């Protein structure tokens, strides 16, 4: 027996157990997201994939589809909340796009473009967070980390290394590195790790090739992320 639900009024099939995100992606419908990556277990932390179900808004990446469910992926109310979530992410970190090597290839930026964000709106925190350039091949700018845990999940579940973890609670939550000094250069992190290539922002960056592709010719400079797809599909061009 086939199962179906509706997404913005369009009837789509689903397999029991599938999340709204997975069913939408299978049907080629884009739902904006940052912490979601189909290679890893859903995390539901960034809240960018909010969709309307009944009178509530839920994260599409963690909510299973049910028979006949009506999902709103496009209303003004949903887009407003996604934009507000993104504005909070921008205000909480140090996202100075003009000086970031990831700019144009950045999923955080691209999703913000997609939702029509013109400014971060909230008073910025300007957190004082260090840059770790101790590793020969990679640099970490903690000010750009949005705590999506993709590097944590990739290192733990794919690389079998557990190089990264989130420490602290609430506002004090921050990314930590498993090495005696706490520095990336003293950990077992390597270019070949999946964890090196999953960051949706400019927090984990490869060295020596930041401006190989000029601004204006990058992934999301001409077409929106809903057309181009995630960084995951374009790793060869970016890292």
């Amino acid at each position, binding site marked *: 027996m086939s199962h179906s639900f509706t997404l913005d009024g369009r009837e789509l099939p689903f397999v029991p157990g599938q999340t709204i995100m997975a069913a939408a992606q299978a049907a080629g419908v884009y739902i904006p997201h940052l912490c979601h990556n189909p290679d890893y277990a859903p995390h539901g932390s960034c809240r960018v994939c909010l969709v309307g179900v009944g009178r509530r808004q839920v994260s599409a990446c963690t909510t299973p589809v049910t028979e006949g469910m009506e999902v709103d992926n496009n209303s003004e109310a949903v887009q407003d909340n996604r934009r507000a979530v993104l504005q909070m992410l*921008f205000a909480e970190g*140090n*996202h*100075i*796009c*003009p*000086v*970031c090597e990831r*700019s*144009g290839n950045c999923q955080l*930026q691209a999703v*913000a*473009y997609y939702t029509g964000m*013109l*400014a*971060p*709106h909230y*008073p*910025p925190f*300007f957190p*004082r967070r260090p840059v770790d350039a101790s590793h020969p091949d990679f640099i970490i700018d903690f*000010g750009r980390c949005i705590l999506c845990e993709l590097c944590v999940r990739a290192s733990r579940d794919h690389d079998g290394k557990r190089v990264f973890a989130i420490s602290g609670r609430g506002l004090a939550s921050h990314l930590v590195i498993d090495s005696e000094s706490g520095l990336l250069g003293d950990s077992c992190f390597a270019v070949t790790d999946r964890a090196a290539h999953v960051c949706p922002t400019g927090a984990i960056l490869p060295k020596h090739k930041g401006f190989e592709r000029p*601004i204006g010719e990058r992934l999301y*400079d*001409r*077409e*929106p992320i809903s057309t181009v797809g995630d960084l995951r599909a374009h790793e060869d061009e970016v890292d």
Partner: protein
Amino acid sequence: MPEKVRVATASLCGCFGCHMSLLDIDERILQLVELVSFDRTPLTDIKTIGECDLGLIEGGVANAENVEVLREFRHHCKLLVAVGACAVNGGVPTMRNQFSLKACLDESYVSGVGIHNPGIPKDPEIPLLLNRVHPIHEVVKVDYFIPGCPPSADTLWTFLTELLAGQPIAFPYTQIHYD
């Protein structure tokens, strides 16, 4: 003939790149001056602001003079617009927010490389620096934001023409970028 829309512009803690981008509309500036007249702006070199319809602010807020100019603009402009990354979120100058003001001044004027006659300038004519650099919406109410470092000439042209035509402002995808 209806009265022209009065426009004022200022560069606070910015690099004048956004003003350059405005000039980059090239010959379209002739169409623009048919519709607007410029009040206080670095383009006219008028130093005091009168009653204006539109104020365009480039740059964030980094010193006491920036605060004063920004408040004056808010007071005199019906519509105030943050133009460019620095006005919108503080931009590149906010990189100094990672350090204390004292550390920045020491590095620039006391202990940095290649400094002769070390000493922090204290001429009363030099505006005092704020502890941190701020986006303008932290100081005054802002009516509209145009991101970009700088926003392209086409972005500014879209904004100005649609605003002056009284239309809702809608940018094509390529005209909105944060870098």
